[in-house]
């Protein structure tokens, strides 16, 4: 068998095993549109804009989805129950060994799962894919205590700038969350490279994204495989008002750093006006996952 064929079959086996895992857990596979009316509001993710229908005088600007998250949340709010999707996603301004403008995402939502329950579900999925190394679970704050001797949840912008300076790094950042991320990338990621499977959970509330906040932390987690970020999950916020608040904050931040902005997606908020069920969801980068497993 040629190397190309061997790799294609290996990839196919991965996708088959993922599908079998979800079918056996009664999670429904869905397909949602990838051409959207609104770009993402995510501060550090940029949508790719496409112009369509110019030749038939129905010119419109659409956006390739950066993740199927909001479209799947529309389904959740309408009673879809547990769902998963494997699809291509597209992001502008991405480059590097582990980044590109297009990649494959596995996204799934489990009803009545909290963040920890969802992490357990991912452990089961990894096991089904033959990845059975020991699991490390550590909170964001613990990771900073252990690997950086820093009390990250109780250090304000001024304190974070001081730490960055003491490490010889620039402290020219506008928000605490950006400095938290800088310190995570600089101090923590290199340390967790030795850990095959590492969940980091309970992010500082400034980095909540669309996760539920409780006290000073957001119930958000990331999965790192040998120091490479492979998954990002939330215990999801549920009401349209919460989504409006989060989108508004993100749009404000984009404006502050002179990025292209859009209005809040009112159609989305209308579609989820009855709220999302209590659930947790996660996005997993398939190519990054594929590179770490041997089927």
């Amino acid at each position: 068998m040629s190397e190309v064929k061997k790799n294609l079959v290996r990839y196919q086996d991965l996708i088959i095993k993922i599908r079998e895992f979800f079918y056996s857990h009664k999670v429904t596979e869905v397909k949602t549109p990838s051409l959207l009316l609104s770009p993402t509001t995510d501060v550090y993710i940029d949508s790719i804009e496409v112009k369509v229908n110019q030749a038939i005088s129905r010119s419109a600007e659409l956006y390739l989805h950066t993740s199927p998250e909001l479209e799947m949340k529309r389904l959740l709010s309408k009673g879809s129950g547990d769902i998963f999707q494997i699809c291509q996603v597209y992001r502008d301004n991405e480059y590097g060994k582990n980044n590109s403008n297009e990649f494959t995402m596995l996204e799934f939502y489990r009803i009545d799962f909290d963040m920890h329950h969802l992490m357990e579900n991912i452990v089961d999925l990894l096991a089904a894919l033959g990845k059975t190394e020991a699991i490390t679970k550590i909170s964001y704050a613990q990771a900073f205590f252990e690997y950086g001797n820093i009390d990250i949840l109780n250090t304000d912008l001024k304190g974070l700038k001081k730490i960055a300076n003491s490490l010889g790094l620039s402290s020219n950042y506008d928000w605490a969350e950006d400095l938290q991320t800088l310190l995570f990338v600089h101090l923590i990621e290199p340390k967790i490279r030795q850990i095959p499977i590492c969940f980091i959970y309970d992010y500082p509330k400034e980095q909540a994204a669309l996760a539920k906040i409780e006290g000073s932390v957001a119930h958000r987690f990331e999965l790192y495989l040998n120091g490479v970020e492979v998954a990002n999950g939330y215990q999801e916020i549920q009401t349209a008002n919460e989504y409006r608040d989060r989108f508004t904050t993100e749009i404000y931040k984009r404006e502050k750093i002179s990025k292209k902005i859009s209005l809040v997606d009112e159609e989305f908020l209308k579609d989820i006006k009855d709220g999302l069920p209590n659930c947790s969801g996660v996005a997993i980068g398939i190519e990054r996952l594929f590179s770490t497993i041997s089927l």
Partner: protein
Amino acid sequence: MNYSTSQFKNGMKLMLDGNPCSIVNNEIVKPGKGQAFNRVKFKDLITGKTLEKTYKSGESLEGADVMELEMQYLYSDGEKWHFMEPESFEQFDLSEESMGSAINYLVEQDNCIVTLWNNNPITVVPPIQVILEVIDTDPGLKGDTAGTGGKPATLNTGVVVQVPLFVGIGDKVKVDTRTNEYSGRA
């Protein structure tokens, strides 16, 4: 001249904390929910130490005026080691401290790479392989021609290298300067 993170590449010479440094590794890290960073490993060209820094994409650093030139080692006066650039005949000298381990391998007339920063020499790299003469070693064991064992030998620069038992005083040997290992008879 300043260089932005998007121009960073291995081998690029930049100023860091007042010292010229060379990029050893440049990794782009883009957290799913955060901005993009460059995690960069540098080698300080003066101290030889490795440094790790993280920059947000778009930050820039000043370039270092660093040149690597092939020069001929002329002589040492005991305090300074003197070199000549063969095209311009310009001469440069380095202190023992800046010479580092190159002291162990350079014989007069040898060519080597001298690194200049703002036209001042800062480091010397000897050729990967040099030929040196054995000036002292214990007599070898008779019949050992396969080089199964080893013994220390002092070479004409003063450096001590493990050599096979058959090597004797006055022999010329090849030495790998990266590992300080004997690599054959010359």
